[in-house]
């Protein structure tokens, strides 16, 4: 049953990913991308990471995609003109090569080792958000502060770039 559900959601994710890549209008791409984000959030829940699923929906589907949709509307773009077939062929070759290399890595790789102590039971008992918070504010405090500086710099940079006089 779980496997069937996995394949169903995976199918939806891959199909909406295909729409993202092939859709003529950027708005259709954006909506399909939101659909993919929701599918990934479902996978995060299945992997016992509910906090990441909530963040995925709030940050990606909520914030980033709204930003992208606003820019699409602001720029008022039409549909793309036709592409050269050679262009598509090169892209297909590149994508297939990436896929082959990753499948090779997955087949050769060994994921059976180095099992840590955060099992499904620990997540259920302690709560996923508490575990994330502990890891983030104890072990990863410095990267967290650096990320906040990065966001500040990004905000200042975006405001300066989008000003009228540049």
């Amino acid at each position, binding site marked *: 049953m*779980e496997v069937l559900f*996995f394949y169903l959601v995976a199918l939806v*994710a*891959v199909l909406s*990913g*295909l729409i*993202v*890549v092939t859709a003529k209008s*950027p708005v259709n791409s*954006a909506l399909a*991308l939101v659909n993919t984000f929701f599918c990934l959030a479902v*996978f*995060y829940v299945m*992997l*016992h*990471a509910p906090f*990441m699923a909530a*963040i*995925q929906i709030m*940050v*990606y589907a909520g914030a*980033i995609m709204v*930003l*992208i949709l606003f*820019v699409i509307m*602001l*720029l008022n*773009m039409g549909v*793309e003109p036709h592409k050269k077939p050679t262009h*598509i062929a*090169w*892209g*297909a070759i*590149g*994508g*297939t090569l*990436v*896929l082959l290399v*990753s*499948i090779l890595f*997955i087949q050769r790789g060994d*994921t059976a080792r180095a*099992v*840590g102590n*955060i099992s499904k039971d620990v997540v259920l008992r302690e709560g996923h958000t508490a575990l*994330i918070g502990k*890891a983030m504010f104890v*072990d*990863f405090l410095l*990267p967290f502060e650096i*990320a906040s500086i*990065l*966001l500040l*710099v*990004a905000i200042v*940079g*975006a*405001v300066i*770039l*989008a000003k009228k006089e540049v």
Partner: protein
Amino acid sequence: MITVGHYLVLSAILFAMGTFGVLTRRNAIVIFMCIELMLNAVNLSFIALSSHLGNMDGQIFVFFVMAVAAAEAAVGLALMITFFRNKETIEVDDVNLLKW
């Protein structure tokens, strides 16, 4: 039974589709969305492996990937707006000032 391999293969498929989109599309915003798709594929494999190995570090890394993606979205879209103001287009074929 769903193994971690299922998630990794799905992540590889999504990443390859994102690569295809980045290589073939010409609209800068669609390329941007394909990059987001690739980032999300990587996030999926991070979380799958983190949950499989019982270690929290992968999920913290996803957190930082999301922070960087948000910063990238803000700066990248501001760049696109600036470019659109100057050239009235955001087709990447027209971004050729540094081409020789």
